[in-house]
């Protein structure tokens, strides 16, 4: 457009705003919504570092209390974008009775904020589901992913 053409600033502002807002909405809408998605393509693929030998710290039955037959199993340490995540489960009578995150990202205040609400929810979900098939907590995708993978490796080791 020639610089001397009569300009309609209002129309341009409306057009630019509309284009920006609809572009953003479109981008967000095209992304998978919520739960079961895997971490982004450019994220370093989370790897279960010590999965098969998971009972490394806890060990099968390491802290078994003889009366109840409860034992703890520690899952593999999973590298996520924000840092390693590792989960320990307590199993009694073939049921998961407790899930504890032994390692999770704490590098910056945002991590701490995320963990303070995401970890309790993941724990509740895991106890309810009795499996690693749980929902991702919104806003804590990477931590949730790592949590699920570490949980799965712990459950595998526990033979559940």
């Amino acid at each position: 457009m020639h610089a001397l053409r009569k300009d309609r600033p209002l129309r341009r502002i409306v057009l630019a705003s509309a284009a920006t807002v609809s572009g953003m909405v479109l981008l967000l809408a095209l992304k998978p919504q919520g739960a079961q998605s895997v971490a982004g393509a450019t994220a370093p693929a989370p790897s279960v570092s010590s999965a098969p030998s998971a009972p490394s710290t806890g060990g099968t039955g390491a802290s078994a209390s003889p009366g109840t037959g409860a034992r703890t199993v520690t899952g593999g340490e999973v590298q996520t974008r924000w840092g390693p995540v590792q989960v320990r489960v307590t199993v009694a009578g073939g049921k998961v009775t407790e899930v504890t995150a032994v390692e999770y990202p704490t590098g910056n205040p945002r991590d701490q904020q995320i963990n303070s609400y995401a970890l309790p929810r993941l724990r509740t979900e895991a106890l309810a589901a009795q499996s690693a098939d749980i929902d991702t907590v919104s806003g804590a995708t990477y931590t949730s992913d790592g949590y699920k993978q570490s949980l799965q490796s712990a459950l595998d080791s526990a033979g559940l």
Partner: protein
Amino acid sequence: MTTISEPRAATALPPAPRRSPAGAVLALLWAGAAAVLALWWFGTGSVAGTAGRLTGAGRIAGLLCGYSCAVLVALMARVPLLEERVGSDRVARWHARAGRYTVCLLLAHVVLVVAGYAAQFHASLVDEALSVVLDYPEMLKASLGTAVLLAVGIVSARAVRRRVSHEFWYYVHLGTYAAVFLTFWHQLALGADFVGNAAARAAWYALYLGVAALVLWFRVLVPVRLNLRHRLRVESVHREAPGVYSVVVRGRGLGRLGARPGQFFRWRFLAPGLRWTSSPYSLSAAPRQDRMRITVKALGGHSAAVALLRPGTRVWAEGPYGALTADRGEGRKALLLAGGVGITPLRALFETLPGDVTLVYRARAAEDLALGGELEALARWRGPEARVLYALDGPHGERPSLGTESLRRAVPDLAERDVYLCGPRSFAEDLYVSLRAAGVPDRRIHHESFEL
């Protein structure tokens, strides 16, 4: 009249029309924006819930804002490709437009991210904003930078800009560099797309370092070298018309500047009251080996003080800038349309444009015609292919018509000419309408204006 107006060979510049690289530059800038969106797209797994959507939108706005900050600075880095090929005035308008958009993106980024975090952590907006500013790494710096950027945005808004002095606006604007530096670090420390992605981090560093290098080179080192090399001083000041003054500047080896007729420099006169401002003034004659001349209308402040310059005053100049030059033309016929002091670059072009040149000079009265005697002399020297026409107010103050019909009557072969247009905005806009109606295509209407 001044002594340096002796004409020079008019055939010195063969017409070699060059396409403006504006389209390519814009395409490159948009491609960069698309790449930034792609960075978000491939770095984002899923978007969960209201909090996820708010934070996601905030991140997109933030990435685009970080990119456009770099672009804004690059546009003003005085890169010759932009200044001399696209045109300084056009680039300045891009900068102003993109600047307004960037301020909106910045506000959107701040509001959306804080709202998204607040929704995620079930905190109030105020608490979350405080926590983001105070607890997150690099965020104190970034908040300070944001405040500066918003201040720059406010000072540059048209309504405010009119009420503040040029100097105030300019020095607030310089704060942009500090602000961009301060906000850079939080992008890398907290930007989810950079934390786990070394390639993205490297690209971001390359973008910002590249822009910093452009600024350092073209805004600092090139001007320093120019002024050390050419040692410019005021030689003389002449009154051309009521309130219009010419300043002749002497220096060494000015041919090496490569300044072409129609271009301008940014001038800073090292005299009391003028030292802190640099103003763009066009060359009003083709540059000589040892002298250049500008013609300035005393509109107040800086331009009024120019009339009082003493010979020998040192001058700091940056340039040459501007794309209103002979190589924009496509044919061998030109029409120059000057309004008031807009005559200055056209006077230089009238001297040097090859081929058939008609100059139409609009002024209120005959005594307001700055450089009129020179133009007559040039026309006589160039012979029948050069003409000067005047459009003056009638005896009762009635304005001459510059409509399509009167233009056609004065210049019958109007549609075959390259038109160079310089003058106040309203003058240029009216003429543009007339020219289009007369069948002159956009690409042959060459214009320069510094009103944003």
